[in-house]
């Protein structure tokens, strides 16, 4: 286990907030077809409020701080917030679409000692990327910003969310990342909107395509281990927990709401009304999330995948129960290994039930 993993495990075991994801705004200059956010401003925290929260997080021992949105640079005070966070010695990561980052912003980000910048790129083809973001010329501006940031010596990662609209483009984006000298990450997860609207789920890539992606050595290394049939769950597996959400990680919205994770909209408190550590230590919701072990899960506890599944408790919560299955992860487990999940068997399915994809952009095959 790496030193970093050891520290993470220690924070998890002690229930200490090691990492926070903070969205500083939901406003955005793009209108991505798959986005789960409402982009209106319903009363964002002020600069002073956010700085006050950062003071509390530093005192609470938070080390990793991710600033995200919405588009973070739509806040005029964003660089001020980053500077303040760095003065408190957080390890700061920024998630952005980067269209507002010029040379000056890139220099400032570098000078402030930001750890890394993650940037969404949906395709290597401008017309596909721009059709997903609905912002003309966004591809051109984003790629230019990636070059600025990379030239500054910053660590940059392209995040490639995979959906029906850009299904065939992941190899192209991977090559683009390599050409730009930046990292590449692939994410096939499409999340329901925060108000519960599930219409965007129609953009999830269909199962057969997911199988192709999960079995691609270029996209997923360690194929032999990754795609191996699940081992029979051990006692340790059944005593285990889902992920760090609520254990050593949580999410704070632009309005001060605290949730176990950005993908787990269980209201657990608000930093405008309570001290962060009071929420972290006393929130009944966070306590409940922390209490759930694999053996407590309604369907998954009897599933052969329980020890290796990427089951997201937040997606399960959005499906109706934080102790229930997350269908998207059932699909991944099935298409990864070819072994049916308990959730599928319970429904008498030999293959996951797939929805008809709402293809908004016709994917084109990439020439070899």
């Amino acid at each position, binding site marked *: 286990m790496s030193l970093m993993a050891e*520290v993470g495990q*220690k924070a998890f075991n002690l229930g200490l907030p090691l990492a926070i994801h903070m969205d500083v705004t939901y406003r955005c200059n793009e209108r991505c077809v798959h986005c789960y956010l409402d982009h209106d401003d319903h009363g964002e925290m002020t600069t002073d409020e956010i700085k006050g929260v950062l003071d509390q997080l530093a005192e609470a*021992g938070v080390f990793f701080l991710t600033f995200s949105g919405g588009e973070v640079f739509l806040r005029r005070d964003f660089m001020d917030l980053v500077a303040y966070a760095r003065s408190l010695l957080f390890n700061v990561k920024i998630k952005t679409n980067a269209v507002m980052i010029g040379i000056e912003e890139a220099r400032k980000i570098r000078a402030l*000692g930001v*750890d890394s910048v993650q940037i969404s790129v949906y395709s290597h083809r401008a017309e596909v990327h721009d059709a997903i973001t609905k912002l003309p010329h966004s591809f051109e501006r984003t790629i230019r910003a990636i070059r600025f940031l990379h030239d500054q*010596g910053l660590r940059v990662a392209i995040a490639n969310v995979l959906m029906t609209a850009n299904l065939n483009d992941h190899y192209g984006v991977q090559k683009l990342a390599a050409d730009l000298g930046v990292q590449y990450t692939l994410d096939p997860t499409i999340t329901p909107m925060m108000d519960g609207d599930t219409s965007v789920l129609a953009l999830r890539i269909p199962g057969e395509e997911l199988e192709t992606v999960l079995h691609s050595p270029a996209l997923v290394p360690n194929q032999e281990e990754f795609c191996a049939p699940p081992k029979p769950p051990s006692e340790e597996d059944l005593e285990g927990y889902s992920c760090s959400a609520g254990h050593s990680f949580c999410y704070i919205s632009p309005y001060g709401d605290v949730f176990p994770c950005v993908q787990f909209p269980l209201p657990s408190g608000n930093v405008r009304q309570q001290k962060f550590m009071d929420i972290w230590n006393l929130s009944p919701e966070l306590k409940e999330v922390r209490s759930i072990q694999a053996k407590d899960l309604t369907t998954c506890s009897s599933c052969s995948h329980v020890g290796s599944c990427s089951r997201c408790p937040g997606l399960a919560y959005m499906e109706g129960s934080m102790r229930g299955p997350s269908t998207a992860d059932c699909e991944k487990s099935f298409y990864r290994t070819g072994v049916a999940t308990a959730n599928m068997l319970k429904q008498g399915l030999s293959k996951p039930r797939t929805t008809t994809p709402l293809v908004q952009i016709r994917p084109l095959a990439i020439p070899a």
Partner: protein
Amino acid sequence: MSETYIARSSSIAARMLAGEMMVMNSADSTFFTLNEVGTAIWQAADGRTPLREIVRDKVCQEFEITPEEAQADAEQFVAELSGHGILLVSDQPLSPRDSR
């Protein structure tokens, strides 16, 4: 005898976790956890206090260790962290502007 001055780099992130100081350099993602003695030296690395004084006041007194042993350990510690750009070392006092 020339003095050694040490200062924390401004590119680092640091936080105490359950008695251990975590330190990470954003420039190359090197990650360290420091023990109590390392943490004491780290916290005293203000760029103005000579390492010899830090060892005398923060290490020998707090941890009951001989000055010779402590000085040698401290120098090794400083060399390792400065090699990763986490500590800056100079024979002159360092100002915060130097801490890049």
